[in-house]
């Protein structure tokens, strides 16, 4: 603002992405919620280490085509380089994790926000749908979807995303139920904002904390499920391979070449562990009321 133009006064317009109103009233800096969270997260060594490992893993996966082939981990039964297989498997596992999580994020947030905001019969109906899908064994749903729509990797994204959004919808709905009572929503309505605008510009940004935490925990869950499906032969189809496929292939030759299970197994477990570290750290950082482990 060095050119001297004053920012528009915020008196009549609640900041959609800003902190909760009572925090702002307390005279804190506007960004203090996120600033505090960032500081708390950086102090958590496990979370930082997890994030660093994940960054390194993603970096390696992205650079996979340019990595030298030196048979560091030996080769598999067909002479393929085991290290390259693990790295390329990681590309697919990580990609599936991200994309399916994104699908579940889109569905879950929209579903939960609409149900929570509209309330009444619609809410009742939408949450009943979630309850019913919950009681359906998800693996069965995924198996059917994979059998029905061919075992393409795109289908895997959709199938995993489709079963993962349920918890997200519940979390967002719970948040929205309390947020929609607050005065900044009333203010937005008084200013003539429509339902869609209120939900997505004013309410959803305020649910970001729990959503980020749960998203971080969804990624490893999806990676695990993809690996599980691939282990059963339902997921990624050869010649493509994910960590699940590699463990499954390796398990068949366990007595002869144990390293074919161990290396993809370590890569997979480490990735899941680091996501869990990061997710725990984010929860402690972003959700001070729920800091059971630190308080």
């Amino acid at each position, binding site marked *: 603002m060095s050119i001297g133009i004053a920012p528009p006064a915020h008196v009549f317009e609640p900041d959609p992405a800003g902190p909760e109103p009572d925090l702002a009233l307390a005279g804190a800096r506007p960004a203090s919620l996120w600033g505090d969270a960032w500081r708390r997260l950086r102090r958590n060594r496990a979370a930082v280490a997890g994030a660093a490992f994940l960054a390194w893993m993603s970096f390696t996966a992205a650079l996979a085509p340019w990595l030298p082939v030196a048979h560091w981990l030996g080769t598999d039964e067909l002479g393929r380089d085991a290290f390259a297989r693990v790295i390329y498997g990681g590309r697919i596992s990580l990609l599936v994790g991200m994309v399916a999580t994104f699908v579940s994020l889109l569905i879950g947030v929209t579903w939960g926000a609409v149900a929570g905001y509209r309330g009444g019969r619609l809410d009742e109906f939408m949450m009943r749908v979630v309850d019913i899908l919950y009681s359906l064994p998800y*693996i*069965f749903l995924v198996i*059917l979807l994979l059998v029905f729509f061919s075992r393409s990797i795109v289908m895997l994204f959709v199938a995993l995303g489709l079963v993962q959004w349920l918890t997200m919808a519940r979390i967002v709905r719970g948040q929205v139920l309390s947020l929609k009572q607050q005065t900044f929503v009333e203010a937005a309505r008084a200013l003539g904002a429509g339902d869609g605008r209120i939900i997505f510009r004013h309410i959803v940004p305020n649910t970001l904390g729990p959503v980020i935490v749960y998203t971080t925990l969804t990624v490893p869950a999806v990676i695990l499920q993809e690996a599980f499906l691939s282990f059963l032969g339902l997921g990624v189809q050869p010649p493509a391979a994910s960590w699940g496929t590699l463990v499954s292939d390796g398990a068949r030759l366990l007595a002869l070449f144990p390293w074919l299970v161990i290396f993809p197994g370590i890569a997979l*477990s480490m990735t899941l*562990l680091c996501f*869990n570290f990061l997710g725990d750290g984010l929860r402690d950082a972003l959700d001070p009321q729920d800091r*059971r482990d630190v*308080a």
Partner: protein
Amino acid sequence: MVTFVLRRVLFMVPTLWAIATLAFFLVRAAPGGPFQAEKEIPAAVKAQLMHRYGLDQPLHVQYLRFLGSAARLDFGPSYKFPSRQVREIIAGALPVSLELGGWALLLAIAAGVPIGIFAAVRQNRTGDFAAMGVALAGVSIPNFVLGPVLVLALSLTLYLFPPALWEGPQSRVLPVLTLATAYVAYIARLTRAGMLEVLRQDFTRTARAKGLSERTVVLKHALKLGILPVVSFIGPAAARVMMGSIVVESIFSVPGMGRYLVNAAFNRDYTLVLGEVLFYAALLMALNLLVDVAYTWLDPRVELA
């Protein structure tokens, strides 16, 4: 209490109906029938088969028939094993999964709760960090990685246990261990979180103030409330475990529910898939009901609505 249970049981009916309907149409929508073989079946034979299973009827007739027989818990004969009723297959596989799951869950609670209490009592000290680090690793190592590794270490290297099959007590060890590890870790984490919450509350301070030993405070007063998160986890966990971890059953060739479900889906064994799914859903709901009832017993503040 009685009305609560009754209402919940009544609510199960429409839910089960919805699940049955969804599953029925998803299964029918899948391409490829149960009688698709590598070898071409003569048309007349195929027509006979379709007729025998009622597959030549219009879809809505099939659907109504399915609902009618499902209500009587009769899912007809399996498509893949025509001489066996679905009911018989489930009856044969269920005890195996129950045994596997029961031991795993028992081990998970017997090991997880003490670890969690230990970690909570030594919060933020070395013992806590060590226990929780191990627990997080336990949650993070997938059972299909753990299974082969255990086989490699305990079976192929040390020759302690058989690597597969379900014959004799020795063969139980590796599948149960593989299945239980994740739940041990998870229950330890839940117990720790629950205990920490309770140990901060006023009544715990009162108990200490009136001179009770730390042991009594933790094990008699705090544990009963601190264990609540574990109780609510046991419902879904038991259902998941009871279905038999599909992976564990297929790694160790254990003839339980999970293995039948996967095989049935691969084989498009309509009747077996539908029977398994409905059975599983009913089981899950019954377990959740049990958990809610157990909740009121442990925490009188909870009211059943």
